[in-house]
């Protein structure tokens, strides 16, 4: 499938900012089933952009801009070719061993209720893969409506108790639950082709099964990622894979508007 992405992140400030430093995880990498045909990150003001690869293997762009800045628009456009691989990730850059993804972070700490839910949902599972499928379905059944929405910093445990979750929250719940079952799991931020405009990138999870490798799970949809999905960044949790992490020097408030179009292009390449 050929997928076109057009993604604006517009920050507006109530008072002009002196300086902005942002770290962008907005550039997908190639895997066997995902080929980036073209990709561009641009900014609507005078800024220095520097590319690097972080410790997790993500492509990272540092953005440095001097003020006064009343607004900044980070714009991503690109095209990616994908094929369906039943969720299994082949030939991705993997600088770190799967073991690392058994760690807990503040946002993926399981809390008191989630481990019980996890072990109940997977009881009777035949093997780790079956366990993960059951977990994926159970989370989707519990949170049938988990939209893509801007990050509010919620933890998996808090969202689980609150009973209301975004795709980010259920992905973090999946990760917390899988780790509590001693299965390495990580957060994925990326895009999913959809005909409607979206207000945030999509979030899902990957879990590591011995002998198979990393496998994607999308508990917000209750599905396994297919050719409609574009993986962009991975991390231990939502914060570690955030599309944009930023700091600004200046007074006033900030408002973020996201305008995102992910579309399936006609024809094969």
């Amino acid at each position, binding site marked *: 499938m050929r997928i076109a992405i057009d993604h604006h992140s517009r920050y507006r400030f109530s008072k002009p900012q002196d*300086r902005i*430093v*942002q*770290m962008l995880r907005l550039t997908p990498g190639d895997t066997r089933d995902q080929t980036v045909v073209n990709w561009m990150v641009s900014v609507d003001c005078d800024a*220095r952009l*520097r590319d*690097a*690869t*972080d*410790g*997790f293997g993500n492509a*990272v762009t*540092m953005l*440095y801009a*001097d003020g006064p800045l009343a607004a900044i628009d980070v714009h991503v456009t690109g095209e990616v070719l994908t094929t369906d691989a039943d969720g299994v990730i082949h030939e991705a850059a993997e*600088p*770190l*061993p799967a*073991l*690392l993804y*058994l*760690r807990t972070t503040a946002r993926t700490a399981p809390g008191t209720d989630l481990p019980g839910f996890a072990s109940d949902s997977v009881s009777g599972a035949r093997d780790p893969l079956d366990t993960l499928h059951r977990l994926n379905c159970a989370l989707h059944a519990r949170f049938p409506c988990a939209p893509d929405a801007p990050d509010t910093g919620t933890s998996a445990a808090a969202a689980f108790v609150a009973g209301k979750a975004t795709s980010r929250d259920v992905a973090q719940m999946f990760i917390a639950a899988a780790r509590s079952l001693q299965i390495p799991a990580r957060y994925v931020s990326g895009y999913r082709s959809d005909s409607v405009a979206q207000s945030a990138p999509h979030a899902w999870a990957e879990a590591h099964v011995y002998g198979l490798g990393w496998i994607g799970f999308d508990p917000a949809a209750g599905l396994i990622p297919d050719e409609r999905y574009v993986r962009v960044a991975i991390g*231990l949790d939502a*914060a570690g894979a955030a599309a944009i*992490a*930023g*700091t600004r020097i200046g007074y006033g408030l900030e408002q973020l508007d996201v305008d995102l179009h992910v579309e399936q292009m006609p024809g094969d390449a």
Partner: protein
Amino acid sequence: MGTSGAFDEIWGFGGPDSPRPEFQALSRWVANTSTEELHQRQQSAEAAFRQLGITFAVYGENDAAERIIPFDIVPRLFLHQEWTSLSEGLVQRVQAINAFLEDIYGERRILAEGLIPPELIFRNDQFRPEVAGIRPPHGIWAHICGIDLVRTGPDQFFVLEDNARTPSGVSYMLENREAMLRLCPELFREFRVAPVDSYPDRLLETMRSVAPGNNPDPMCVVLTPGHFNSAYYEHSFLADSMGIELVEAADLVVDDDIVWVQTVGGRVRVDVIYRRIDDDFLDPLIFRPDSMLGVPGLIAAYRAGNVALINAPGNGIADDKAIYSYMPEIVRFYTGQDAKLPNVETWRCREPQPLKYVLDHLPELVVKLVDGSGGYGMLVGPTASKQEIADFRAALIAEPHRYIAQPTLALSTVPTLVEQGLAPRHVDFRPFVLTGSDGVRVVPGGLTRVALREGSLVVNSSQGGGTKDSFVLLDDRAPTQSQSQRQGL
């Protein structure tokens, strides 16, 4: 527990009346100086420390009032040959620590060889995936190491703990010496003592040697969390004695992956940062997003190879207590030799057999949290109450992987001024080892910490410890005062 039977570094095993022959002059000095006079000099030193602001905060106490660390006027002495063999062991250990860090954040050969269980690295929060794959300028990670040593006999030294993050305490080494020179000048006529005052120069040389590229005149700064930090005195003291800027995060900006400092004369590019801020707070984009102490973009500049950070972020994996128990293997793997400085025997509670042994012998052992420091989260079996032992037993059973245990060592003592005169008190020792691109240097001296309470083995300043000056005696045959030891890598 107690002092009986312990080796005294001045008096030997024989008590005050038969000191070790090399140190008879010290006993004469003590005999010829009245106890009142010694107390007076000690008070004078402490008054000076208070005035300078050499204080520390006791964590876990409600009144976070800053205190000065008590100073003891009776120095500890190392013979020249004792020091020479200690230095060799320290150099070897620090070389191994640097090689281990380079490997664990790079190729991970030691894991491929199966010498350390991988989960001990990757499930350990001290391993920082955020800096994996970065090679620091000149491949040096632990530029400043404080290696905590204990002694049980004339030639029996053991490493108790490695400090490869941001070891503190070097200002005590320097200020204690200043005080001794001023208050007890006669001692320096009795003994030829190696000077320690070259430490700031050696540190600056080390910093300059690891500057990125071939800049002949690199800009070096000391980064402090600010004056509210308990070690602020040391930060400002070191910057001052090196003649370089002391900066806070707000003084630094990163632009285009390059670090700049704002000065009165404009923006100046920074090459080397001696940071006294923990990893967690260094860069809010990478570590804790709520850090106000950090510099956004600092890790990007570091990853790009444009700045040296002293010490490198991620070093905590080398001084983790769970890794400590593997140090003999680590030293052998990277240096091809057996460790010259042995570890204290250590039981890893994460392993079933050692755990069983530890649970059966709690009243005799010292049990420590693998990620604790400063004497917190620790059980000293022989002095613990029944209740404390029971509580620790429960904690151990619940989370055995978080603990290690060691035998209670008969730590050496050094005569220490108490109300009635001199009495033996247990000590440990933290020498400081500098590693630059031009080699490893051990400054002849260090921080001697002394447990002031009779019989106590806990020397931490937060637990009622004090400090002493540490004299390293020069070789009688040496024509000049050599200031430091250099050894190529």
